[in-house]
């Protein structure tokens, strides 16, 4: 007859053993997964650095936003109550509200910032979503599954950056020319920036990074040798509303770096 102590030992080792086997099976399932004819980009934690000094005029930001919106079939609705935006322009006060001061230099007050979904490490939108339509991928991207979205807009209430937009009506009539490579959205779902995850799968950089001419740097934050980490090492940076504990993955460089004393 086995005593209680031996029984527990055997059960514990069985449990650990089966966990290891299951883990192994899981890895086999996710092995090399590349779209034929392309090389996908992978990362431990995708992140973005925006060098604001390289956006000389507001037109530069609008150009980048237009490129993103054109690619992703984001409708152009000129009504602030119904508009859809993935990346847009804000002034200092609305980008870094907590740093606002009456003594702020006029130059900083006038600065314009491109803002977008911050793909938080600890995303409030994911926590509140009742259907798990929005979820965090292992590579740090906060993704949307429009099929599951029921349009409750909890995520919009939870997001401290206003990065989400709701489709109050069918967006298609407001899209000038539909890019057939990506789906549109439909009435009743919330949408936002995806960090161009379908482009990463094809080995391409996000549209905004490509259109910005080097002002937006995109890469793997978990890799110390990646371009984003190098820029962050060499510059002082800001992130939006870090005090909320969301852990934004979008970093802003204000000064432009270099060898200023």
């Amino acid at each position, binding site marked *: 007859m086995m005593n209680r102590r031996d029984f527990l030992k055997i059960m514990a080792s069985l449990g650990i053993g089966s966990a290891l086997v299951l883990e192994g099976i899981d890895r086999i399932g*996710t092995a090399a*997964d*590349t*779209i*034929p004819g392309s090389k*996908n980009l992978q990362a431990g934690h995708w992140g973005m650095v925006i060098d604001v000094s390289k956006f000389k005029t507001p037109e530069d930001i609008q150009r980048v936003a237009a490129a993103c919106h054109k690619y992703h*079939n984001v409708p152009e609705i000129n009504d602030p109550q119904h508009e859809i935006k993935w990346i847009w322009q804000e002034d200092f006060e609305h980008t870094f509200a907590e740093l606002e001061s009456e003594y702020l230099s006029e130059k900083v007050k006038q600065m314009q910032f491109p803002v977008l979904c911050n793909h938080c490490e600890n995303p409030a939108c994911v926590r509140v979503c009742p259907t798990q339509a929005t*979820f965090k*991928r*292992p*590579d740090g991207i906060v*993704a949307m*599954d*429009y*099929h599951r979205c029921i349009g409750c807009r909890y995520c919009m209430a939870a997001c401290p950056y206003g990065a989400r937009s709701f489709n109050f009506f*069918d967006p*298609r009539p407001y*899209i000038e020319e*539909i*890019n*057939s*490579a*990506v*789906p*549109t*959205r*439909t*009435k009743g779902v919330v949408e936002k920036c995806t960090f161009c995850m379908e482009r990463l*799968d094809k080995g391409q950089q996000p549209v905004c990074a490509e259109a910005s001419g080097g002002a937006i740097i995109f890469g793997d934050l978990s890799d110390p040798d990646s371009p984003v980490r190098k820029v962050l090492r060499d510059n002082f940076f800001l992130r939006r509303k870090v005090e909320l504990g969301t852990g934004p993955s979008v970093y802003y460089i204000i000064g432009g770096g270099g060898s200023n004393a």
Partner: protein
Amino acid sequence: MYNGGKIITGLIIFALIITAPFWLNIGQADEPPEISLDTPVINQLSEKECIESAEFMRSQHPQLLNDWRDQVVREGKTVYTSSSGKEYQISLDNTCLQCHSNRSEFCDACHAYTSVDPYCWDCHGGGIAK
């Protein structure tokens, strides 16, 4: 049985009314849908084959698309390996609709016949003609 005759007559009339749609439509089957494979991309193909056999696609495409949707959106899996070992990108817009760009003659033909109304089109296939 009280009023047996009336009850049985009533039951027969009831059964006839309930089954009337069947009697009235006997021998009037709709023409089965004609599916067109006449698209520029398909005409260019040297070997006209879908990702799986036509029989499989005919019966299983809703299930396949359902699986694809979860795989590509939620599991980050982007490649489908067919039973013949060929690899395809998992994408309704970039794989299926590249060839089948004739929605009304291909997809809608059957869907209308079987009276199903999938909501794929609300988001997908916006770039192809309806």
